[in-house]
């Protein structure tokens, strides 16, 4: 098992990572006519043995960031330092070899497992790729251990993915990552495709594995409650950038960024008394297109606390407002102190295909 080496010091550090996808068009020759700014300057650090949770809504770039970390999509800019190595400087072959130490768990457990492979061949594949499948008996032992660790019987080895239920498939996906004894596991929406009662099983399993093996997790999810439950540190993403980062408890106790506040107030709680009492901060309109993000603070078009100065023309940096609590908002302190009151926002119309159409306003959606 991987020893939890010194618990301090980050295992992974991202510095100003950007992933831009070119938008191409043209009849004969493709020309780049713009970029989708999927991830636009994210810096974060994940400590050894810790769980970093990344939340945000669809289109905020959280999945792209996770894939960018593994260079499954090529980052455009920035540094990714994994255990002292800059991943972006690595050539193909060393990058491939270092992937043994960074594993990934996917959202849809069925589509991420090759339907033609039996569980055994799924699990052996990674070992083979890294030259660890030399000794038949040792491999067999390793597979059985991995399966036992995720709570599947050894008889599962000869079965195929389609013969399992959703929760079991996700366990196979986790076993496939574990077999290589990685240091870091990037889990992209690990439970969102599962039924509620199965989600808890998988979350508990991830928790147990971390305790046993000292794994470091980057958990990417849209469900704030899930992330808060499992993560030590939570980062909130909006439109390609990190808007707030704090320890899980701090973030919940005192969300400082207006977007985090809105997100938190929007999560339904299975308790009628809470639901009846709580005040919802309803955001006006939709997420602007990442191909045409608003100038200044990315959130200012929907922000109930937006101010006439700075918000629209100066992009706020992620700065430490409280101890270990970083916020990307010019007015974080004033909002926290209640000096600025929320106001109504006119929703800007967002088109899914060609980005935000500027200057169109319409029906007011009142914010309480």
């Amino acid at each position: 098992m991987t020893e939890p080496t010194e618990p301090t010091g980050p295992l992974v550090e991202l510095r100003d990572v950007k992933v831009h996808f070119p938008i191409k068009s043209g009849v004969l020759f493709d020309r780049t006519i713009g970029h989708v700014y999927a991830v636009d300057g994210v810096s974060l650090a994940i400590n050894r043995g810790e769980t970093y949770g990344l939340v945000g809504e669809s289109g905020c770039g959280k999945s792209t960031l996770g894939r960018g970390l593994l260079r499954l999509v090529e980052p455009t800019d920035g540094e990714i330092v994994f255990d002292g190595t800059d991943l972006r400087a690595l050539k193909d072959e060393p990058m491939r070899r270092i992937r043994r130490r960074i594993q990934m768990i996917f959202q849809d457990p069925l589509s991420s497992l090759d339907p033609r492979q039996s569980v055994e061949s799924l699990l052996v594949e990674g070992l083979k790729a890294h030259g660890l499948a030399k000794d038949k008996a040792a491999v067999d032992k390793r597979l059985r251990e991995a399966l036992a660790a995720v709570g599947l019987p050894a008889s599962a080895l000869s079965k195929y993915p389609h013969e399992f239920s959703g929760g079991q498939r996700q366990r196979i996906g986790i076993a496939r990552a574990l077999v290589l004894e990685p240091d870091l596991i990037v889990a992209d929406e690990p439970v969102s495709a599962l039924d509620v009662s199965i989600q808890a099983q998988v979350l508990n399993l991830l928790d147990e594995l971390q305790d046993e093996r000292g794994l470091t997790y980057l958990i990417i999810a849209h469900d704030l409650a899930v992330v808060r439950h499992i993560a030590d540190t939570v980062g909130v993403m909006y439109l390609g950038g990190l808007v707030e980062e704090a320890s899980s408890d701090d973030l919940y106790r005192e969300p400082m960024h207006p977007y985090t506040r809105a997100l938190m107030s929007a999560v339904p709680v299975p308790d009628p008394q809470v639901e009846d009492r709580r005040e919802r901060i309803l955001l006006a309109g939709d997420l602007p297109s990442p191909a045409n993000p608003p100038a200044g603070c990315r959130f200012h078009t929907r922000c109930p606390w937006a101010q006439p100065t700075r918000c629209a023309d100066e992009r706020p940096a992620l700065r430490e407002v409280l101890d270990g609590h970083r916020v990307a908002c010019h007015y974080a302190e004033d909002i926290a102190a209640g000096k600025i009151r929320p106001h109504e926002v006119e929703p800007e119309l967002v088109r899914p295909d060609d980005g935000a159409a500027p200057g169109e306003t319409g029906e007011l959606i009142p914010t309480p």
Partner: protein
Amino acid sequence: MSDPIIQPTVGAQRESVDPSAVTEKREGTLPRGLDRLGERKRARLEQLAQATADKGGVSLVRDAFRRLRRNPTAMVGASIVALFVLVAIFAPLLAPHDPAQRFDELTKNLTVDSIPGASSEFPLGSDPLGRDFLSRMIHGSRQTLFVGVLATLIGLALGVLVGALAGAFGGWVDNILMRFTDVMLALPALLLAISLVAMASRSSQWTVILAVAIVNVPIFARLLRGSMLAQRESDHVLAARALGVKRGAIVLRHMLPNAMTAVIVQATLTLSTAILEAASLSFLGLGDPDINRAEWGLMLGVDGQRYFEVRPELAYFPAVAIIVVALGFTLLGEGMREAIDPKSRR
């Protein structure tokens, strides 16, 4: 549950062990709650659980094969194909006579406006040259199978090569290969085949086979490339990359095999069109010049057409044989397509 018709297959997916059960089993106790049950009831519960458990280890291919066997249309197609193949293999044993031999008792009755019909020795009568028509029909199946299978296999091999290269490399390799197949697809298949045969200095059955094969290359290439590209975007290929599997291994072990299913189904369907195309070429007189060779297309085109007024059976039998065999392959191919992807079923 967006699709109410997809019912959870009870038993096929059992969460047989869960973490709580595992941890508690380690301590040698029952899963929580079950200790309250009486001995008999607990046994009953386990029995019910066993009833829904399944043996497992059924690969997708075997599963598809099971579905194929349950599909009556596919089975009709398979029977036709099986019969056809058997006849072709055992043609020398089944045929009562030598197909190339001209029989005196038939030739002496041949006139301009009459060809001898059925008799006890020659059940289907004579062909225009005094040969046994039944034996020629039976031997014709060999030729048809040979041409159809070989043309399909060659087409498949070349198409897979082109498609796999395009799908695996992408970029300019893909661009050049696909523009090339576009050009070939733009020409009508038969016209292309005719031109290819015409280009050969001397036509033989090999020119027919090659022509039909080449006509099918772009179809296979396009299909394979398309599904390879879809595979490239799929989660399991991404998962393999994340595992650190080498590029070549991803193409050969993940993208190609998963993309091939569609191509193999297409190959079955192509068998029927290849048979038809080969028959068309023979019909047009572009086939094998050897008059002794029995071939359905040739029999239909030369003898059947010329002597249609005299003896229409000379056209009917080869025509029906071609249609039935082509239908058999089509039914089997469609059945395979359904079996592999049950969602395509209407």
